[in-house]
């Protein structure tokens, strides 16, 4: 928990925050509407004796009373995907529409990719990319179990992603669910902070900046780019978006979020960020009894 001390100045009710970080996280699943309606998935859970609870902010997210969500009938049928509750946030903010072209720059193992496909009724083109081939094979396995037919899977470094395999040269939307220091997953992985160092944070921030810039470059004017991480460090969040604002044609835009959250920060460690970054969302574990998350929504302006 020690590394988290640095966030005391920016987190309200820091003691409640620490307390929540120490509590283990329950099991949540997302209903895969490519294969089943929420009603159907719930009917199967009830019939087979798996207790669930609906969350109020998203009709497709359920909390399950089981330690093995993979050994349920709903999982076998691909009706549900085990996913942390907050992980369902960024695809919703991206708001992809059926028929669109969407890039998931860091897609593996496919939780958000398949959620994007589901939100598009599995119609359109979702380019699911990751630079790690092993993780990509996990993505493919998961995508087939969930029945997603709209994915084109690529294995590239997202920082210099080439559009060459495709006939179009811009996406309508892009999601950058970036590799990060994962501080916000501490409730699920008690050793998440074991290798924590400020150096690591800075080096991963360099990668994040490169990927976010490429996502903006490959998205059409008026298109949407969502940037998300499961970490609290402003170096990996607001500072990365600030870098994009300074170097690419884009602006931060507002979005609705049915979960309690705090605004993005506008100053950190002697650095000032654009005031528009307040429209980003910081989700802390104590606010909704979830994992931690950061989400920013950008509109491409040229």
């Amino acid at each position: 928990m020690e590394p988290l001390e640095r966030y005391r100045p920016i987190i309200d009710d820091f003691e409640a925050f620490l307390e929540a970080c120490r509590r283990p996280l329950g099991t949540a699943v997302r209903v895969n509407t490519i294969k089943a309606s929420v009603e159907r998935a719930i009917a199967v859970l009830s019939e087979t004796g798996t207790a669930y609870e609906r969350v109020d902010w998203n009709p497709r997210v359920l909390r399950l009373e089981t330690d093995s969500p993979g050994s349920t009938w709903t999982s076998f049928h691909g009706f549900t995907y085990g996913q942390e509750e907050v992980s369902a946030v960024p695809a919703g903010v991206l708001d992809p529409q059926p028929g669109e072209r969407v890039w998931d720059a860091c897609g593996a193992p496919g939780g958000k990719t398949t959620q994007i496909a589901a939100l598009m009724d599995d119609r359109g083109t979702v380019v699911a990319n990751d630079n790690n081939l092993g993780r990509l094979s996990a993505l493919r396995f998961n995508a087939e179990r969930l029945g997603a037919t709209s994915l084109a899977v690529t294995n590239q470094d997202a920082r210099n992603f080439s559009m060459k395999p495709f006939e179009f040269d811009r996406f309508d939307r892009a999601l950058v669910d970036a590799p990060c220091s994962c501080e916000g997953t501490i409730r699920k992985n008690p050793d998440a902070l074991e290798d924590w160092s400020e150096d690591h944070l800075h080096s991963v921030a360099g990668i994040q900046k490169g990927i976010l810039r490429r996502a903006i470059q490959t998205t059409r004017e008026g298109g949407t780019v969502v940037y998300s991480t499961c970490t609290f460090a402003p170096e990996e969040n607001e500072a990365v978006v600030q870098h994009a604002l300074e170097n690419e044609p884009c602006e931060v835009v507002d979005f609705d979020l049915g979960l309690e959250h705090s605004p993005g920060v506008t100053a950190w460690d002697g650095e000032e960020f654009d005031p528009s970054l307040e429209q980003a969302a910081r989700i802390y574990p104590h606010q909704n009894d979830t994992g931690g998350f950061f989400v920013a929504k950008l509109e491409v302006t040229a």
Partner: protein
Amino acid sequence: MAGDDEPIADGEAAAESDDESVVESDGETAVEPDNETAVEPDGESLEENVGQRFDRLPATAAERRVEGRATREEVVDYFADRFGIPAETFEEYTFWEKGAGKIWIYAGEAPSPIEIEAIGMTCLRTRQEHWKPTTDFVQRFGRRATDCVIELSREEARAFIDGQDQDLEWNGDWGYLIAAHEIGVGSEGRPGRDGEAVEGAALEPLGVGLYVHGELQSVVPKGRQRSVSDRR
């Protein structure tokens, strides 16, 4: 990544096999070759093109350029003739081949040929005497099937998805069948858009079985097999 939702194989998967491998469930990690091979030894071991190249299937035999390649017409006819899945089901999809005989179904845009890792989902093995649909394909599209669907009890379904072969009565054709069961009935079927149900579905497809000599062999791939125990 510590941040992963469904867990990933720790040794970072044996990458590039085309098998339905890897991942998921409760820390139980399966990176296994496709055990569908066990069923039909001869046509099954696919040689993949190293170049990861996908070619769109020709519409009809008249447009066929590559020896032995199935046509779109043949594929759609196969699903209709064998399983009664209406041809219209596939109107907005394209079919692709990579390597020898593995067919993929795709809803998006792409030029042909295209060299990427995957396009849509695998749906069918051709270039062997008896074509074989994949488990994931029948789960996705098999609700529309009217023929060659064998209904299993909950107990039989549990054994089937655990990979077990079973002696079962079946009066129809031998060969590949869609195994299905009744589950979660009382609610309408899948939505066209989130939450809005458009079709009822009594039988839910589990996967593909091979029926011969009074026995239904489960060909659910290893990585897809599950031990499910209902609480009731």
